[in-house]
């Protein structure tokens, strides 16, 4: 039971995060979905079979050696619970699912938010990909220590 409702408890979170060496210099998926809910979209959508989910109910796990960081699962997850992380020296790249307006533009500086909506950094938008069904994936550059803290961006103009 989390002290903060709607925020993943720290002990569970630690089990979902990739070890640093798996994400150093390469983009990998982080799936923050720990409940037994009837869904396996991430498993069958993954083009390289990197999501381990033995039953439709079992919480997913990522095989970080197989994961290519393509982001397909980020755009597809119905729970918007998948993120991409790349550790890069002093910095990190974090990709988050995004379904608001306006859609941030590459090069724009936006507020990066943590799991409670707190503004933790001003971050540069590196890439934006939008799927046919209108979910976007926004990739921002943040300081390395925020790699597993930043999980959303504030829609431009809403601050």
């Amino acid at each position, binding site marked *: 039971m989390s002290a903060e409702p709607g925020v993943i408890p720290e002990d569970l979170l630690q089990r979902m995060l990739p070890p640093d060496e798996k994400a150093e210099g390469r983009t990998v998926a982080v799936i923050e979905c720990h409940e037994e809910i009837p*869904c396996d979209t991430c498993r069958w959508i993954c083009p390289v079979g990197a999501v381990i989910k033995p039953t439709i109910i079992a919480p997913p796990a990522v095989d970080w050696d197989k994961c290519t960081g393509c982001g397909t699962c980020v755009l597809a997850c119905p729970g918007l619970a998948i993120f991409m992380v790349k550790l890069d020296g002093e910095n990190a790249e974090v990709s988050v699912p995004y379904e608001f*307006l306006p859609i941030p533009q590459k090069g724009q500086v936006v507020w990066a938010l943590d*799991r409670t909506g*707190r503004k933790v950094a001003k971050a540069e938008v590196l890439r934006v990909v939008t799927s046919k069904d209108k979910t976007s994936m926004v990739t921002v550059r943040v300081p390395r220590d925020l790699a597993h803290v930043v999980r959303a961006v504030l829609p431009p103009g809403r601050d």
Partner: protein
Amino acid sequence: MPRRLWEHPILEFERGAEAEFLFEGKRIRAYEGESVAAALVASGVTTLAWSCKRSRPRGFFCGIGKCSSCLMTVDGIPNVRTCITPVRSGMVVERQRPLGELPTDAQASQEVEELDVDLFIVGAGPAGLSAAIEASKLGAKVAIADENFRPGGQLIKQTHKFFGSRANYAGVRGIEIARILLRELQSLEAEWLTRATVVSDYVGSKHTLLVDSPGRAWLVRADSVIVATGAMENMLPFPNNDLPGVMGAGGLQTLMHVFGVVPGERALIVGAGNVGLILAYQLLQAGVDVKAVVEIMPKIGGYAVHAAKIRRMGVPILLRHTVKRAIGARRVEAAEIVRVDENFRPIEGTEEQLDVDMLILAVGLTPSTEIPLQAGAQWDYVPELGGPVPIHDQLLRTTVDGMFVAGDASGIEEATTAMLEGRIAGAKAASELGLKPDKADKVIEEAERQLDEFRSGPFSEKVLKGKRKVWEVAREVIG
């Protein structure tokens, strides 16, 4: 202030031609394809009716013709459900004080058309559409009726992507699933009755149903009937719970997503089940300031991933909190929330006032079971299924010969299970008529397998407990 949405991150609003109607002498600008109630709300009309005894203002609540908050006189006809009445240029709309009066020169009835079918389906939502598709594919002559002028049930306002397996549209938005099902049924030879309210079902050797529609009526004879009438949103008792601005979560979704009308700027949501959590996210998408989601239980009822979506956008979820009262003279101007103790009693001194103009109830649903109950189906009160439900077996048969029930009308669950139940009921109804029983059995077997799979997790425990109670009674009385 209410506003119309022109841009939305997910939806594209295809408004019809401009239309104008008269509301108590005032011209209201609207668009064809909008409901009268939605057009009035968009124009700033908050009071749609008054209560019978105390003349208290009543506003938009459910939006799908199930409550009575929007009954108005339209072109001289009293008690018209304006939320399921489409706008037409030149129509005259008036509020009733307090009750409408029947016009003295009214014609008793229109001509009654007769319709003979194998299977009649009541409700064109996920369950009804799925049932109609399966039965039609198996060769049954099917007619499907819906009260609304837009078919698709609640799918047409579900902007989120569905969970589930690949076979059940996982990862597809509800609005898109509605399009897929409607397209599929339209390619088959089913008869459509829109804006059609089933008034009664008299059961003899066949089912004889009276169906009412503005300017038309049908007398339908059918071998089988599938009741897929959905559910109605629950009310919560608190002072001023009838003020305009207190709305059902589904009602607000209908306004925002079907008609593109946002009736306020700041919202409080009561209930942190999936409906409340998803709605909070949808309000953020529409640019509404969501002040809080309050939940009386010590934990969130919905999925953690849905809660996480709104928490990371800064929306607080307050557990062990509930709404104490709505504040406002003629509409919601604020809401008072309060902490509760372990017996759910308000703790004095913990009240907090929130500056909101919308107070949204996401506190569960009650199955719409009028038709089976009128037809004499045995029923039971099953709290795990949301209230009174017709006794039914796993093939969705009720105790009335040839009557099936599917979707929320058989117990509150969700749209994926409604589609699967609909497929089972549709296939079973067809096979009972002697149509391709082997093929029907295969459809049923596969749908049952998917249903078992979908219900295998902890979130389905409660529903399964209720279903098992009902199935056990059914074993004795249906066999």
